[in-house]
């Protein structure tokens, strides 16, 4: 396989920067910073109080260091907590949006203009700390679906936001959730009313552009009784030598018979081959299946970030509710990932499925960490977990740390994990059939991840497959 070793590594495709004047608050974090962010967003008094409370609690907390990752200290005073592209006033329609911004998203493959917008997918485009455009607002409004940038939702539907904000991930939940609660800037708010099946896929694309900023987005999705929504999230950032912090919070709430499908393709800048630069991706994602027969499904493809640290979780409260977690985490060069899920079974006949595929290459470390907790009242709960790791190269590491805690004897749970090298005989077979080694590896890796890709919406599945192929280039050998 030495011939492939010489293969030139393709650089990070989204590493360019948009030259745009930005309005950003000075670096540093204090109550004044929070007041300033809140004022810039024109927020009501209760939200400012909520932020300040979270901030005061955050001050009493210490940064956790239990995950299986190592990184230098984060200087929270060196970060700019708010950065927005300068605009005269809020654009009323797409025509008023700075063409530079539209071009940025077009270059990223997310056309926002009327003629070109993706059919069947409504997009909310977030640039640094603000949302720049949201497509298909009208069509969605007709269906009764609210899909708005978070700051707009606070203005237009304060009661709904107030009711659900922090109800799944309380501001005091953990260090990064507390930080996010204090300084969060933008994100998406989705509300699907009773009995409505959202007519199209909803999608938010996050772009970090400005240097030395952190992105702290907040997403909240509520599906009322019998509602259905599928939400996609994508992201990228320019290549820079210093690390940037991204600490998001995502909350999902599903009531009786509701279904939420949340898919992520995470492609933040991973840093260079020596581990210089890259995003620290410290995210809290949690969904609550509050109602009977509700279902929350997380699908994630993690290929970017210098350090990924996230555990999309499900709290299965309602009887017969279902939680799913499908994940592909790919690490290359010096990337580190500590990711997995938590499935907390509270209701009767609750079911959860975990399928996690980890691929480590180069000098990276890839960890699956998960918790399956079946509480006393969760009669007939069922869990199936499968965690497979693939190693490409002899200097990477793959680790599996599942925690299983069962307090009900009628529960059945199974956990399986395996770790192995990419099959040389399989590569040989493909090569004998005329495929290049690189294509063979890509094919084997895609086959390895098939169970997860199957869960992704069509457009994303294609993107994810290409992403894996790009990120693996040069690592085979």
């Amino acid at each position, binding site marked *: 396989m030495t011939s492939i070793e010489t293969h030139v590594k393709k650089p990070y495709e989204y590493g360019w920067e948009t030259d745009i004047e930005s309005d950003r608050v000075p670096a540093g974090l204090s109550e004044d910073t929070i007041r300033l962010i809140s004022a810039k967003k024109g927020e009501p008094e209760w939200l400012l109080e909520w932020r300040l409370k979270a901030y005061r609690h955050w001050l009493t907390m210490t940064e956790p260091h*239990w995950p299986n990752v190592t990184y230098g200290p984060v200087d929270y005073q060196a970060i700019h907590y708010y950065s927005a592209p300068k605009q005269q006033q809020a654009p009323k329609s797409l025509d008023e949006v700075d063409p530079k911004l539209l071009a940025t998203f077009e270059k990223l493959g997310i056309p926002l203009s009327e003629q070109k917008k993706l059919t069947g997918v409504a997009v909310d485009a977030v640039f640094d700390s603000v949302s720049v455009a949201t497509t298909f607002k009208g069509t969605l409004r007709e269906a009764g679906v609210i899909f708005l940038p978070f700051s707009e939702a606070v203005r237009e539907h304060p009661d709904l936001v107030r009711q659900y904000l922090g109800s799944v991930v309380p501001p005091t939940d953990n260090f990064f959730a507390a930080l996010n609660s204090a300084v969060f800037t933008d994100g998406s708010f989705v509300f699907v009313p009773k009995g409505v099946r959202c007519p199209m896929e909803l999608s938010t694309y996050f772009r970090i552009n400005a240097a030395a900023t952190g992105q702290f987005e907040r997403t909240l999705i509520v599906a009322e009784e019998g509602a259905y929504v599928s939400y996609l999230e994508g992201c990228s950032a320019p290549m820079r030598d210093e690390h940037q912090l991204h600490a998001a919070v995502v909350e999902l709430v599903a009531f009786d018979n509701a279904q939420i499908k949340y898919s992520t393709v995470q492609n933040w800048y991973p840093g260079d081959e020596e581990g210089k630069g890259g995003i620290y991706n410290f995210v809290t994602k949690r969904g609550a299946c509050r109602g009977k027969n509700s279902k929350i499904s997380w699908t994630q493809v993690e290929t970017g970030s210098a350090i990924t640290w996230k555990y999309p979780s499900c709290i299965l409260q309602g009887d017969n509710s279902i939680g799913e977690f499908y994940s592909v985490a790919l690490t290359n060069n010096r990337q580190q990932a500590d990711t997995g899920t938590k499935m907390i079974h509270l209701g009767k006949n609750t079911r959860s499925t975990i399928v996690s595929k980890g691929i480590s290459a180069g000098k990276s470390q890839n960890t699956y960490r998960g918790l399956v907790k079946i509480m006393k009242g969760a009669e007939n709960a069922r869990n199936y977990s499968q965690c497979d790791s693939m190693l490409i190269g002899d200097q990477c590491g793959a680790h*599996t740390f599942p925690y299983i805690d069962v307090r*009900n004897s009628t529960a059945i749970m*199974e*956990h399986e994990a395996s770790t192995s090298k990419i099959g040389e005989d399989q590569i040989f077979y493909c090569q004998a059939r005329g495929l290049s080694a690189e294509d063979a590896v890509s094919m084997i890796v895609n086959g390895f991840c098939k169970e997860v890709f199957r869960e992704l919406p069509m457009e994303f599945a294609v993107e994810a497959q290409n992403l894996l192929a790009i990120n693996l280039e040069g690592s085979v050998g």
Partner: protein
Amino acid sequence: MTAVAPQTRRAEDAVAQLVADYEAFAANGAAGAPPWVQELRAGAIRQFAEAGFPSTKDEEWRFTSVEPITRTRFAVASATVSAAVRRAVEEVAIGESGERLVAVYVNGRFVSELSSLALPTGVTIGSLAAAAEGDVARQHLGRLADPSANPFTALNTAFVLDGAFVHVGRNVAVDRAIQLVFVSLAGSEPTVSHPRNLYLFDDGAQASIIEQFVGIGDGPYWTNAVTETVLGENAVVDAYRVQREHDNAFHTATSQSRQGRSSVYTSVTFAFGSRLTRYDLNATLDGEGAECTINGLSVLRDEQHVDFHTTLEHAKPHCPSWEVFNGVYDDRSRGVFSGRIIVRPGAQRTDSKQTNNNLLLSEDARADSQPQLEIYADDVKCTHGATLGPIDPKAMFYLRSRGLDEEAARNLLTFGFGAEILNSVSVEELRTQLDGIVHARLDESARKRSS
């Protein structure tokens, strides 16, 4: 926070008490141990005093609270021989008397009058205190079990006095099982013993070794054992460990083995007794082509708590390892399993399989499983699996359709669950003894259920 404070103080008090006990023990001439042993102890007590007792906030102790141990004041136990001790030894000893290799330790101290040792050439079995005078023990004692890794190991090392010493010479094959019987005598006040065992198998040695822990009397006592096992090149060793402490006992133990090139080590552990057990089983494959099997079974009832922590470390290439731990939990008992497989950089061609199955027989039983893989080499095959649940209703239905009544079907399935581990016992008489214990346990559960 205020609710926690008294407990914390208690643990600190317990540590201070143990340090004071150590000082009295050391000032007493510490039973005339050689200076190197005294140094070993002094280093260990410092480490223990620094670390203190673990709390459930420590990742390694998340599911096991040692509070019942820290709450009790344990005095250092002394050895006495009574008719009850003789009976207990006779009950577990196997083989024809006269041909036996049975060494007996009462409260951690070797008692030669109870032991029957017809030693073949090249084999030493006896007291660690006696062996500590020689060079062999000095070379190995305290080299494997790391006091900084576990406060209980540190405590055992601080109070190291006596225990089992076994040395099988180069190319010697021992044709009978070596039996080490550890009897704990509960006195009028709670006592603690710290048996320290060292088993050395030179290149090409072959032996089976059985450790049996039994308890006499009703009062609480605490056994805190540490075993170090060294296998030379090509050595083949089967090690069995049967823990049948009294229901009021506490049992904390660490076993650390290191294997040389192409050696084969099989360790089978059984836990039936004690109210709180924590057993750390660490095996290091430190020579190419070494093979290791670690199996375990716990059958629990009432409020028993067993925590098995295993670490299989593949330090060298071309080593296969297998691990199966099964647990059967009735009443309000609780089983914890944490199995870690570490593949060190360069340990290529590692092939490791780990399985943990848990059977919950009662609604209040609880199990926690934590299989872990830490892999730093690429050309490896590692798998782990964990299952947890009640008896399979389909299997029950099948047996009922064949005419078995519910109780019989249930017992058969439960026993089958344990038999997976019992089958790895190749010493016939021990197997018979263990089958008896498991059957008795299941019958007892059945009686309780029907009444």
